[in-house]
């Protein structure tokens, strides 16, 4: 149903809007289609096109079969899912707690805030970071991929800003009713901030899913490698150092394999978004406040 504040716009606006959104969507869909087509293309298709393929005339799943043969990829996907799910949960808890605790003028609020902001500006070096992880005995543990990412300053700042904008009178009336800070956070602030929690959760999840460099440094056991590390080795190399000398049967065209890698990296995380979308819809918040 068309709400009252969404009156039917003038046809000119409608056309402009349709053109902008439609154009943008096409500009995205066509290249993504090229990626998918190339991943399904046969060697001849790729040689014929000299690289990317718009439409595979001899579609094949060879690239995907190569990717998933040997079980390494399935295990890696499981590792990545674990790191992403657990990491996002931990990071969300840490961030929500800290953001809420600094969203009001409380004891030590300001110095803690400054502590976080400082992390926006400077970065610890690779070597000291490695030494810490090693000291904590986290080398070769999946926690080495989770704990160092348990708080992102950007996400924290965004979260805190949304928390600060929760209507103060609601909080104050709750406090007068004798609610503790824990209760206020759980019962009022969090339900009112579903949208930002969804956004920040998505940011964290994508961050954990895409991370690979920590795994390169901290995980020596290849059976614990997340999916991105393995995928990168496909995209980057394509050619075995001495395949010629060894008579190793050639891999499928790197191009199709590389695009299959892109698809595999994209699909699981892309599936998360539609589930979160409803939190961005209008009415959720107002409903909560009124109820």
């Amino acid at each position, binding site marked *: 149903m068309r709400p009252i504040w969404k009156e039917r716009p003038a046809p000119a606006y409608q056309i402009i809007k349709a053109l902008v*959104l439609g154009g943008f969507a096409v500009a995205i869909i066509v290249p993504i289609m090229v990626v998918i087509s190339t991943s399904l293309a046969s060697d001849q298709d790729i040689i014929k096109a000299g*690289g990317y393929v718009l439409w595979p005339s001899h579609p094949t799943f060879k690239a995907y079969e190569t990717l998933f043969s040997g079980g390494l990829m399935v295990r890696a996907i499981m590792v990545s899912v674990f790191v992403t799910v657990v990491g996002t949960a931990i990071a969300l808890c840490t961030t929500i707690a*800290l953001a809420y605790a600094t969203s009001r*003028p409380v*004891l030590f609020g300001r110095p803690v805030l400054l502590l976080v902001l400082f992390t926006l500006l400077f970065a610890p070096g690779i*070597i000291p970071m490695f030494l810490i992880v090693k000291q904590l005995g986290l080398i070769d543990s999946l926690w080495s991929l989770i704990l160092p990412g348990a708080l992102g300053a950007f996400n924290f700042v965004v979260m805190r800003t949304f928390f*600060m904008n929760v209507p103060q*009178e609601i909080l104050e009336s709750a406090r007068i009713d004798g609610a503790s800070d824990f209760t206020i956070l759980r019962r009022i602030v969090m339900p009112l901030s579903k949208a930002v929690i969804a956004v920040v959760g998505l940011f964290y999840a994508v961050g954990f899913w895409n991370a690979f460099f920590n795994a390169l440094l901290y995980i020596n056991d290849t059976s614990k490698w997340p999916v991105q590390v393995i995928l990168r080795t496909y995209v980057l190399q394509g050619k075995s150092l001495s395949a010629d000398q060894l008579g190793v049967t050639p891999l499928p065209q790197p191009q199709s394999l590389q695009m299959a890698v892109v698809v595999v990296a994209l699909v699981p995380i892309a599936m998360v978004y*539609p589930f979160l979308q409803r939190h*961005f819809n209008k009415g959720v918040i107002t409903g909560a406040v009124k109820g």
Partner: protein
Amino acid sequence: MTAVTEERKQPVGAPPRSPKKQRSMAQQLPFKIRLRRDWQMLVLMVPGVLFLLVFFYVPVLGNVVAFQDFQPYLGIMHSEWNGVQNFINLYGNPDFWDALRNTLILAGVQLVLFFPVPLAMALIVDSLVSNRIRRAFQTIAYLPHFLSWVLVIALFQQSLGGAGFVNNLLRQAGFDPIPFMTNPDTFPLLVVAQLVWKDAGWAMIIFLAALSAVDVSLYEAAAADGAGRWRRLWHITLPSMRTVIVLLLILRIGDILSVGFEQFILQRDSVGPGAAEVLDTFTYYAGVVGGDWSSGAAAGLAKGVIGALLLWGANALAHRLGEPGIFQKRGGES
């Protein structure tokens, strides 16, 4: 949101309440009382602060290698100290200044041309009536964020490159090809176009979240009062999102010296370092390529200090304009 709450009582468009007021009382309370009052908040801080200490503050001290001739096989304890030599080298290198200039130009262009795009897109998406179209568009628009820069640039090349789709069409039609991908003068525009394609849909999400917090009853009331679409946009929507917009702007300004690494190093050859060398690629060549950890750390520190100044400046400016910004100037509850 603050703005929304205010507007319930005040005429549409009034500035949001200044955050200063809330705090004045807290200052006078003695420590013990505040401790008793705030202990739960302190408990909530513990995990985050612990994380910061262990995974940030301890390792960040490793940046002292900026004042050393650091060698991994010697470690921090045994590497030679060389004072501010690494910074002097940086200062005396004309390439550094070129890279700084490019970085600022590119950041400026990005700020002006890229920053508003996701906001505008979020507003358009928000104005859609059909939930189906809205969801479909959001899902499509955010996909490119997951493609690596290598691929994004390869795809751009396929369409706009010298041997790309558009130029092949131009050639067939008898025109000269247009060097979209290799002209140093238009490089900033190319960069923005790539950025819009890759990240506008993604950046839109945060604005959508902010939009979802706008109270629809305000729209209803305004619409009933006969306020047109532009008036409502100007007086309800934008003021409600102001805090978030300002916040993101401040964060971007504090981070202005990072305009991206992969996007530039990949295109450095095709447009030349004269246009595409930015601070991060400069550091890469000056430090990482030769395994010079100290130079890298020195550049990082310099960047951090400049970022801090910019962040502070932008935040102060936001205060002038009556925005809370990232952190408040006068608080002093510690």
